[in-house]
């Protein structure tokens, strides 16, 4: 049954690490069929936000809903509706990619034939065929990233959360991933992707959210963000929005 609710709603999310306010009253939404770029300098709070959405940490305040289901109230239902690829994939080094995909399919209770079909599609699409029988510990960074992406596609969730997904990928795999995300958006599914590659964000994302020091600094389409700044690129906008004031001499 397809939900009419947006794949991701975050309202007033706040999270601290001790005295450090990592995410400060952040609200954002990923609509159906939208690819949203999540941009910010290092330490801006992107990974914390994504981990909170994935259920890996419990925020100090705020509400997160995945495809209409509140993560705090119904964590299992919400988790079933998302797929999360962290910056360092959670893989079992002593399994092969095929064994790992089988295990993840079991976790999400994907019917065997459907899981097998989707796994085969991903293996072929991401060119994992040569590595399918090798132990993951022997795979390169890029291969590991591809395996992690293939795993979250198994249960075809309404929302994908991707933290720096292009790290280590070769140009062909980058193209494959971008095509795949566009196809998912065309099917009405949502994607929140954190990246430092502003050119990719500009070309791939329907909308971008820029955060700095845990606070949202700007939100809109790349075109709208550049509006009124003749000749400016998204990079110029990003640098202007995330510049810290010079300390007083």
């Amino acid at each position, binding site marked *: 049954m397809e939900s009419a609710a947006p794949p991701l709603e975050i309202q007033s999310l706040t999270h601290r690490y001790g005295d450090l306010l990592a995410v400060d009253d952040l609200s954002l939404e990923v609509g159906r069929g939208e690819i949203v770029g999540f941009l910010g300098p290092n330490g801006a709070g992107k990974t914390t936000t994504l981990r909170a959405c*994935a259920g890996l940490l419990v925020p100090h305040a705020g509400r997160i809903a995945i495809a209409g289901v509140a993560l705090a109230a119904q964590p299992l*239902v919400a*988790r079933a509706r998302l797929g999360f690829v962290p910056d360092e994939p959670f893989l079992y080094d002593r*399994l092969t990619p095929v064994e790992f*995909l089988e*295990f993840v399919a079991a976790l999400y209770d994907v019917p065997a034939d459907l899981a097998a079909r989707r796994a*085969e599609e991903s293996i072929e699409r991401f060119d994992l065929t040569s590595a399918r*029988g*090798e132990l993951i510990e*022997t795979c390169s960074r890029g291969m590991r990233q591809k395996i992690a992406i293939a795993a979250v596609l198994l249960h075809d969730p309404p929302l994908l959360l991707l933290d720096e997904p292009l790290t280590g990928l070769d140009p062909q795999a980058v193209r494959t991933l971008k095509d795949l995300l566009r196809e998912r958006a065309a099917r009405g599914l949502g994607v929140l992707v954190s990246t430092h590659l502003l050119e990719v964000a500009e070309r791939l994302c329907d909308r971008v959210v820029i955060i700095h020091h845990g606070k949202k600094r700007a939100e809109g389409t790349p075109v709208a963000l550049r509006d009124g700044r003749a000749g400016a690129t998204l990079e110029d906008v990003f640098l202007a929005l995330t510049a810290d004031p010079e300390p007083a001499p």
Partner: protein
Amino acid sequence: MIARGVLLGRARALRNSVFGRGRSGGRRGARGPLTGALFAVAAGLILYAVIDGFFDELVRAGATREEMRAVLALAFDVALAMLVIFDLESAVSTLILDRDLDLLRVAPLKPRALLGLKLLDGLPRTAAPIGVVALPALLAWAVPGPTPAATWILAPVVLALLWAIPLGAGTALSLAFLSRIPARRARESLGLVSLLVFAALWVFNFVVLPRFASEAGEPLARMRWLLAAAGHIVALTPGGWAADLIAADALGSRVRSALALVAAAGASLALAAFAAGRLLGPLLMAARTPVARAGPRGRRLRVAVRPFLPAVMRRDWLLFTRDWTLLGDVIAGAVMWTLLPLIVLPLHPVRSPELVRAMLLALAVGTGWGIGTRAFPVERRAAAWMRIAPVPARSWVAARFASVGAFTLAPVAVAALGLGLPARLGAADWLTTLASVLPAAALSIAIGLWIGAAFGEPGWTSPTSVLTLGGRLTSAAALALQTAGWIALPAFSQETTSGAWLSAGLAGSVAVGLTLLVLVALARRVASPGYHH
């Protein structure tokens, strides 16, 4: 200058992890080092009380000062042996396989400086036997008596020298060994060495302890017999030198022992520095060169999805069986646990059913603990799937319990048939045996799982160091209590058959209840915010 900077960084990292600064200073990070230190202090205090009481008993029994000094020397040597058996491999793993070596290796650090830094990194673990065994023994000796100020001043130096002797020589020998094997097998080889040393110690105990116990009377008399028989050998060991330096009456003897101790420690560290200078660089280079490793034999390339429980069991099976150091550790442990009760045979005649029961109990408790404590750490960072996947914590816990239970009961079943059939156990013997073996296995698995979840080291490099220091001490205490409790149980109920049934039933019920409680606590832990390695 670089080494100083790295040292400063280490000190800051320790401060941050203890006081919970920054993002890593979450609940788990803040408690880890403090918990380990608290456990170590508690263990040290207990040992201090034991050794102090033992010294009092020896004094009352009229022991000579030489005998007392030999006890101190034995305690020092036990600490050194523990360091070699339990911690040397961990120290060498830190030196060869630690995660930050990629960073340190590209820095212009000399191999000897790198060796120094990594020995310092391994200090919390390698210093544990010294802090938990040697220091309490030294205090038990020095605190009650009139102790000259020089002894107190010398004490830290003596402990540091005791630490350096096995670590330096052991590191040098390990580097020499590792340089002669394929580097990609370094971790497995280190695990194998640790396993062999541990097994050797077991066999030694197996042979020596029953003989020692049978040739003398009461415990105190036995110890005095041992001191008389082996005192002159102990005097020639580092522990003997250290004890002489602390406790000898004659100045000449003290000076001789000090020279021997300093020379041994100096030679040991020099040997380590020499080995590091010659071997560490190429070894690190080789260990980090990617090597294509063939996948598992007979691998299936077609995707076949299973239901949740079989999927978890299959994953656990693959993770355990593909790490042969882990598997070897578990199998060797199973064999040694089974043989443990045979140690008492020279002391007391034991009926076959009782012996079989004791052997199966030791096997069930030891193997359940061995696999249980490793079940969560073996997942490393991928344990995060417990938080990400839409699976309730209770299902995870039930699946892990079933999985570890199956792996534990398989060798127990084989041993039961192998031991029970030749012993011609009757139906009642089988029933009383199973009535205690099964609950004992269940409780041991549950406690092992909880300890693994609470104290697991996701970055472990050897099968013997999958737990933090606090976890090791906790698990050792839990294991000793369980084993002793189960094996001692018949002593309370040997009078009648009904008494045996009653005590077995009662103990079994308590064990099952405790198992459920521990599993509930484990489920709460797994479901708690922020739980994942």
